[in-house]
């Protein structure tokens, strides 16, 4: 059973890919790293994303080996600069 997750792109990453978010289908048991690979393999503009971006899964920072579930929200987080 494939699963669908919601990828979100902020700030510089949104500018890079030209999307603020999109749904991506992944095989069951896929990780954040698999999502990144799946997107980068689509070619331009997604191949402009870094191979090892910072991400948050369901609004919590996560490593690339975090497994994903259906409807997870995976945010691509450019280096932050608040304050």
């Amino acid at each position, binding site marked *: 059973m494939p699963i669908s997750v919601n990828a979100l792109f*902020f*700030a510089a*990453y949104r500018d890079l890919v030209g999307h603020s978010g999109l749904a991506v289908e992944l095989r069951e048991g896929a990780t954040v790293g698999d999502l990144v690979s799946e997107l980068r393999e689509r070619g331009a503009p997604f191949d402009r994303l*870094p191979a090892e971006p*910072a991400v948050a899964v369901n609004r919590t*920072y996560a490593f*690339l080996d975090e497994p994903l579930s259906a409807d997870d929200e995976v945010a691509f*987080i450019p280096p*932050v600069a*608040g304050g």
Partner: protein
Amino acid sequence: MIHAAVGPEPIDPAQVLSRVGSAEDGAAVLFVGVVRDHADGRSVSGMRYDTYHEMAEDVLREIAHEAAARLGTDRLAVVHRTGELDIGEVSVAIAVSSPHRAESFDASRYVIEEIKKRLPVWKQEHYADGRVEWVPGTVPPGTGAPMDPSARERPVAGRGSHTAGGGQVA
């Protein structure tokens, strides 16, 4: 009462300060971050703050609670602004109070340092020459490539201090 908010409303530092203080407290510290007119030698005309809003309030609240534990009181208020700001406008205000001054200085500093390390906020500088750039930032700890298991148990702050990773777009 701990207060943490992220939003587009202009910030009044005196009002943030008024959220803290009690008859037990001998010290209060207010930190104010302001948009300044220059960065790395370039003239700046304004700043846009973007945020992952749903997550940012969670992270700010988490930072506030960590700081309150160091402070030893629950008298802590922090507000971060979003949207388009002019030079001189307040981007962040942090107010704390405690019986003694050391804890107030420490907690105030902790909040602003952690905001810069891990609050999902990005700023885009507008330069006097009309160009626009995302300000180089910091990779938050606890994300990205997995570290070896021993390191992973306690994310190392130092890891988050470089500015690579697509932080700048012309």
